[in-house]
């Protein structure tokens, strides 16, 4: 092995009108040939910036303000534009996150490969074509000769990412920088792409930098890892070292926040190091508080009862029925959720789990089947008083914290909306008091009421969403991937908050997620969904220890192995 890339004291600054943001502060790292270096960090840590800085593709107005980047002994910062162009593609290859947008939609795969080959090598014409075929075969694309004439939109996401990798390899580079290469892909595809990158690294003795936010990816593929936090590298070492016995407080917090699939913990501990996670849960006297005055709970037994639910979407409209293409999004789904339990719905994208949640929430109407909430059919008479009451008893928290709040309203008006609409209080003063209490309760503080959503971070926005849901005094909370858009440390705090609220208010929760470890931490029982059908419903421990269905076992196999992780500090 020899040192391929040596970054020393790198500083990157982004001047903005609110002052300069230092995206990278005194960053030093090295990459050897034939090794995979993982660069891990949460959003805003500056990890992607470093990848872009190496090949001089920083987005304006970012610029390097100090330090050196030596590649095979040459200083990249001293190179002019033409010299840099000789480095890009030919000696350093790049893989971007989203394969959907990385390829030119109007050019065939072959044309894009050939132009890159002709640029980077001496091969021309037939030779270049042959080399293109060879590359596609290397990245695992079958019938490569025919595929050369295909356009990007004719490939699936995983296949496109393979094409992107082939393009990155076209100039036979020594170093590959992969920026979140699997984030946009489904779990099963993720594993394949990571395997491919690892294989290429070994076979071609490549140096690889993988930039990711996902500890699981690091555990699976990297040899060494560098942890970034707010523009600085806080810890570097072998994967076993860093994940098994982290020395920096940030790394410890980060790893403690990673949900575990092997055992269920009561809560996530010691995640408070990370700034912005300091908000703590404030208990209130639920007996005497407004939040406790829910409607008379005269119903015992099941909270939600779903019976033979069906829903199809029209994929392609046509005048004649036989020409229509339909997607059976929910196929004969039945399950019931007991009061006070957390019921998980698990599946890959397109499995229909979110559709089921939206059916129960009343956002869609089923083609057939019934949904009973506390013993009342919610679709029987949608305008009636009872279904209004049922609706109030059932609230939802959404995935995307940026689109789930109306940017034009103050937080006060967002949270107060259900209170005002249902006239749950006698006057405006009381409403404001309750909104303050709610915001305080979810860990935001009452001063948040007069601000607008854009003033908050993703995790804080999710807290506002929770406060809004609570303002209807619900008895059932549907959480649709409530943390998948969040950083792992923020996820831990939000999951903690949800657990606390559930215990305190005796909420019933329907928890939808694609993330098995999160399910293990949150749920009592779980239903596995695939292609709109339920494969298995079981106790969460039974599911993880002794899955009954083949598909369940398949899902569990795909889960990144986390055996390297240090034991939780309890």
């Amino acid at each position: 092995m020899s040192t391929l890339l040596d970054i020393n004291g790198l500083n990157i600054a982004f001047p903005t009108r609110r002052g300069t943001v230092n995206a990278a502060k005194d960053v030093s790292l090295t990459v050897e040939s034939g090794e995979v270096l993982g660069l891990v960090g949460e959003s805003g840590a500056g990890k992607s910036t470093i990848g872009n800085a190496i090949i001089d593709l920083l987005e304006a107005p970012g610029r390097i303000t100090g330090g050196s980047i030596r590649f095979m002994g040459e200083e990249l910062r001293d190179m002019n534009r033409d010299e840099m162009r000789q480095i890009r593609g030919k000696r350093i290859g790049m893989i971007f996150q989203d394969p959907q947008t990385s390829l030119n939609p109007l050019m065939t795969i072959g044309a894009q490969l050939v132009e890159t080959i002709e640029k980077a090598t001496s091969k021309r014409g037939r030779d270049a074509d042959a080399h293109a075929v060879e590359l596609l075969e290397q990245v695992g694309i079958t019938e490569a000769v025919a595929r050369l004439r295909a356009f990007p939109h004719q490939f699936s996401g995983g296949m496109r990412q393979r094409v992107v990798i082939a393009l990155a390899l076209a100039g036979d580079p020594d170093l590959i920088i992969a920026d979140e290469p699997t984030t946009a892909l489904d779990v099963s595809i993720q594993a394949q792409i990571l395997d491919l990158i690892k294989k290429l690294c070994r076979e071609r003795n490549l140096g690889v930098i993988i930039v990711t936010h996902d500890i699981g990816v690091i555990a699976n593929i990297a040899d060494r890892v560098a942890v970034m936090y707010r523009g600085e590298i806080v810890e570097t070492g072998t994967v076993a070292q860093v994940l098994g016995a982290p020395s920096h407080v940030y790394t410890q917090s980060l790893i403690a926040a990673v949900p575990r699939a092997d055992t269920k913990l009561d809560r996530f501990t010691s995640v408070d190091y990370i700034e912005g996670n300091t908000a703590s849960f404030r208990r209130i006297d639920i007996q005497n508080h407004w939040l406790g005055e829910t409607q008379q709970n005269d119903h015992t037994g099941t909270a939600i009862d779903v019976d033979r639910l069906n829903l199809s979407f029209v994929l392609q409209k046509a005048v004649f029925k036989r020409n229509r293409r339909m997607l059976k999004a929910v196929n004969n789904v039945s399950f019931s959720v007991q009061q006070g339990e957390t019921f998980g719905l698990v599946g890959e994208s397109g499995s229909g789990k979110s559709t089921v949640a939206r059916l129960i929430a009343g956002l869609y109407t089923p083609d057939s089947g019934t949904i009973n909430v506390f013993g009342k059919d919610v679709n029987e008479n949608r305008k009636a008083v009872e279904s209004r009451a049922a609706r109030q008893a059932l609230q939802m928290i959404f995935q995307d914290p940026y689109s789930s709040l109306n940017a034009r309203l103050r937080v006060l008006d967002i949270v107060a909306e259900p209170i005002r609409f249902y006239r749950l209080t006698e006057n405006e003063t009381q409403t404001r008091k309750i909104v303050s209490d709610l915001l305080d309760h979810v860990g935001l503080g009452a001063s948040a009421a007069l601000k607008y959503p854009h003033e908050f971070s993703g995790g804080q926005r999710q807290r506002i969403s929770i406060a809004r849901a609570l303002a209807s005094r619900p008895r059932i909370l549907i959480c649709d991937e409530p943390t998948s858009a969040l950083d792992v440390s923020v996820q831990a705090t939000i999951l903690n908050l949800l657990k606390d609220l559930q215990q305190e208010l005796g909420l019933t929760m329907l928890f939808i997620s694609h993330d098995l470890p999160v399910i293990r931490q949150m749920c009592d029982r779980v239903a596995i969904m695939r292609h709109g059908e339920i494969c298995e419903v079981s106790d969460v421990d039974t599911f993880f220890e002794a899955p009954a269905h083949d598909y369940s076992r398949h899902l569990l196999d795909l889960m990144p192995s986390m055996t390297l992780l240090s034991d939780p500090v309890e």
Partner: protein
Amino acid sequence: MDSLDEKPVTRWQRFKDNDIVWSFLSSPGAMGAAVVASVMILACIFAPLIAPFDPFDPGQISLWDGKLPPAWVEGGQGKYLLGTDNQGRDMISTILYGGRLSILVGLAAVCLGMVLGVSLGVIAGYVGGVTDAIIMRLADVQLTIPGILLAILINGIGRALLPYELRNEFAIYVVILAIGLTDWPQFARVARGATLVETNKEYVQAARIIGLPSWLIMVRHIVPNTLRPILVIATIGLALAIIAEATLSFLGQGIPPTTPSLGTLIRVGNEYLFSGLWWITLFPAVALIVLVFSVNLLGDWLRDALNPKLR
């Protein structure tokens, strides 16, 4: 990181910190355009107070003073700085009064088109289905015929439907109607597009789960979130409406010469251009161009400032 204990910001600080305000304050072009546009619009609105003469008062007009050149040209008189027109009306005053009419018609027409288009567009986008299909097909059909032609047509029909003696009196309303009705599909398309984007956002779903009725969701949640792109096309639409009015008037289809708008003035002046009385055309034309240019400049800046991708 936003700390929650920071001291509350005042409204003024919040206003100054706003990205759009900031972009405005750092764009000399936009500020210049805003100054020019507001000075012109204010001057025109307050024309009765500012104008040296009242061009509609026969007592102040004398044919003896007709066709006088601007004051600095030989034969010009000091009291008519920009000269007089063929009927002896002071050019400055007629331009101010004419500009007033042009701006009024432009604003009214844009408002009409905007209210109509936004309501229909938001309803189409939110309700979907057959309603959507009907409204948008209608817009499509209307867009197959270019705006100015349609305005001429509507205007022509409107005038033909009015009794002869009322035609001059109601000409201004007919013109507003013609331009406004021509404008709505643009607004409807943009409003519908924005509504589709917003309706798919989770805050709308949250509002539906809370149980808010559709009209309240549209008025309270969707419409305020569609206003940014609407504002951009409304600004550019104002410039186009002013041009459209001027074009109609120039073609003899718009505002009659008894109460001239800028377009009418240019038309009248055009007849005297060949005999060398250039000022009767030039000054109204310059006023029109400067007005439209400054509004366009504002619209152009607004489009960039409101485009999140460019920030």
